[in-house]
């Protein structure tokens, strides 16, 4: 099985990735697929901004605009931001805790393929009669009234992708609870691992409400149920609650791992221990808890009544406290550090003021009475882009530069990286800062055009120019990736020179078994501790021995493919006779594959001690 040193043909590489259960390869799959959807969502954003660049524009029609807008939001949240974070979680978290893989490698692969097929299904709507058009929130009265199959694509695609996310989250939880290396106590875990842990817990609790909501929607639209139809005794508000009980934790599922990435970057490039480590952990967990108590701040204007609004307003504002703790800790980490302004560090430094602005507008929106003015205006659009772009996307870009060497063994070009950063930063503020004021003047959200002479022209034009700057920045990043990959200059274990956590003690990229010997962890930032003690490597915690590895498997792909096919059956059953057989065939593939998995024993294989020692002679250090 030790074929890792030899060159392989293209077909073999593709087959390898289709069947892989290795967390590092699954990370690359998430990065590629998430990156693809990010570009797609970005393209949709450009269409939105072009349409709104001038008043009375007819670049796209009103109906098409709704579809583009909906797909932009849905794609960015479910198919770009979350999978890209999953990419870094997969790539880095097992290394950070000193594990050889995640707890359930098979499920890891299944999670990816479910997300992938869900995303493809959703996007096939463009070619099969029109995309969903009820917004990424898909409020029930609107989405039940929507004609064609757009919303069906939304419901079924999200259902499949959502299963994948849930599986991924549970897998990370079990991994962190059970697979930490000797000495890696909870309070020695790097913050990225901690935030992965809390975000996974949020996934565990937040996705079931979404699953239920989407099931109701599916049944209302495709099987004649009436959960949300008030004329039949249903209640349309239930969708809003279920969606936001999921939806607000969802924004924390995105931002917490981003905080984690930034925490690593701040400590690394300030060359200092993270300030207030335990308060950071505490704040992360607290944000996780409070994240479940505030969902109704998205529904202040629904008519919940003053008492409910007041409770949720206070709870919402309370979240600003742990968030503030984190902001101060990052600043104090930099304070007195010997700071190195690498590309990731630039993003981290720019993140602080950008995110704080988003937080401040968040507290403004959280004041329920004031929200009656802001709600459904561009002010809200500005708010959530400041937190999502200024927080999550900055973290993703920073993480791409920071972890690229660990994932691929090459360094992205720093000059191009900095050009990307400046273009993106300027473009971002240009695009979204002005939208605060557009909103306050009264420009409603989700409109496909506006009239001249209402004071909205300049703001919208500036906003569109900013969007173009961000697009250019993204293109520079792509060029950077291509140049770096073509040059293919390999780097060593710790290419930034200041690595603190376990992943930097390993070669870039690490061997497929990660650790030849599990490392002994002697404190927070274990690799830094060893370096400070003059050691070049981690102290091993065990003698060299055989390593048990899982076999590759094609079954996750088949299980997901089955659901993908079944989803077409569910959707077309309503208007074609062949729908039902397709539904049954798809489910048969899924359950058949699961059956094969349960019946056939797969014990994996062992890498033998002798092979490991031989590797060492050839210079493959672990």
């Amino acid at each position, binding site marked *: 099985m030790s074929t890792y040193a030899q060159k392989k043909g293209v077909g073999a590489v593709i087959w390898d990735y289709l069947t892989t259960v290795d967390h590092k390869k699954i990370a690359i799959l998430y990065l590629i697929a998430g990156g693809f959807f990010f570009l797609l969502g970005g393209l949709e954003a450009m269409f939105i901004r072009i349409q709104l660049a001038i008043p009375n524009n007819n670049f796209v029609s009103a109906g098409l605009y709704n579809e583009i807008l909906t797909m932009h939001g849905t794609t960015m949240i479910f198919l770009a931001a979350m999978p890209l974070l999953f990419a870094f979680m997969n790539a880095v978290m097992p290394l950070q805790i000193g594990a050889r893989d995640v707890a359930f490698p098979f499920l890891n692969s299944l999670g990816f393929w479910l997300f992938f097929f869900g995303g493809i299904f959703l996007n096939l709507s463009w070619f099969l009669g029109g995309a969903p058009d009820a917004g990424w929130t898909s409020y029930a009265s609107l989405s039940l009234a929507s004609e064609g199959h757009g919303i069906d694509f939304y419901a079924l695609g999200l259902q499949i992708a959502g299963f994948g996310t849930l599986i991924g989250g549970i897998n990370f939880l079990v991994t962190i*609870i059970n697979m930490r290396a*000797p000495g890696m106590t909870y309070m020695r875990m790097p913050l990225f691992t901690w935030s992965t842990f809390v975000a996974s*817990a949020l996934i565990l609790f937040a996705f079931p409400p979404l699953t239920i909501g989407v099931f109701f929607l599916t049944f209302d639209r495709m099987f004649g149920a009436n959960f949300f139809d008030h004329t039949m005794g249903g*209640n349309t508000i239930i969708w809003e*609650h279920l969606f936001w009980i999921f939806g607000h934790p969802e924004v924390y599922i995105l931002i917490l791992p981003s905080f984690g990435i930034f925490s690593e970057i701040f400590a690394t490039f300030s060359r200092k221990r993270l300030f207030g480590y335990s308060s950071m952990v505490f704040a992360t967990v607290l944000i996780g808890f409070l994240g*479940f*108590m505030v969902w*109704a701040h998205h529904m202040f204007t629904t008519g919940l009544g003053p008492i409910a609004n007041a409770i949720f307003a206070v709870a919402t504002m309370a979240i600003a406290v742990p968030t503030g703790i984190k902001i101060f800790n990052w600043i104090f980490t930099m304070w007195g550090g010997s700071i190195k302004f690498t590309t990731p560090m630039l993003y981290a430094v720019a993140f602080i003021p950008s995110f704080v602005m988003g937080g401040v507008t968040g507290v403004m929106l959280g004041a329920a009475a004031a929200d009656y003015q802001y709600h459904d205006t561009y002010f809200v659009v500005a708010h959530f882009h400041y937190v999502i772009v200024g927080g999550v996307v900055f973290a993703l870009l920073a993480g791409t530069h920071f972890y690229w060497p660990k994932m691929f063994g090459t360094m992205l070009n720093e000059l191009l990286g900095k050009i990307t950063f400046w273009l993106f930063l300027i473009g971002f503020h240009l695009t979204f800062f002005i939208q605060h004021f557009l909103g306050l003047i009264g420009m409603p959200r989700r409109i496909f055009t506006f009239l001249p002479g209402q004071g909205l022209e300049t703001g919208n034009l500036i906003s569109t120019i900013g969007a173009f700057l961000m697009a250019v920045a993204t293109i520079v990043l792509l060029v950077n990736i291509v140049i770096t990959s073509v040059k293919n200059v390999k780097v060593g274990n710790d290419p930034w020179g200041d690595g603190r956590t376990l992943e930097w003690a390993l070669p870039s990229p690490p061997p497929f078994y990660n650790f030849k010997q599990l490392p002994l962890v002697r404190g927070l930032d274990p690799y830094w501790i060893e370096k400070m003690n003059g050691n070049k490597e981690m102290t091993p915690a065990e003698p060299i021995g055989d390593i048990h590895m899982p076999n590759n498997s094609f079954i996750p792909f088949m299980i997901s493919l089955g659901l993908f096919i079944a989803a077409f059956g569910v959707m077309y059953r309503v208007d074609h006779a062949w729908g039902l057989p397709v539904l049954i065939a798809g489910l048969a593939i899924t359950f058949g594959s699961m059956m094969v998995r349960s019946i056939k024993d797969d014990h994996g294989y062992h890498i033998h001690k002798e092979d490991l020692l031989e590797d060492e002679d050839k210079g493959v250090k672990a």
Partner: protein
Amino acid sequence: MANQQPTTGNPRVDIEYRRRKNAEEMRYQVITFSLMIFLTLMAFAAVGFGDFSSWFIAPFIILLAVVQVIFQLYYFMHMSHKGHEAVQLFLYSGVLVAAVTILAFTTIIWW
């Protein structure tokens, strides 16, 4: 838990202590088992005999069910033993989230 020695591999396990511990455990299980049967009978009785209003019966049965779940978790699934902290944390977090949801649905959506 990765660095915790499995207790069974230890040759110096105090057999006598183990036996006493097991006997004690067994006694608790028998007691809870009879209590659980008793609670079940109570639930049936509440519905079958006497005419209580459904406003009493439904909360009463739910309360009994909660008690039974706690018995089940702590005495039969050993949640009181060491090494179940993570399980407890997640169980109670789940209960909390679900409770908040139910509270919201019953107060601001339906009534």
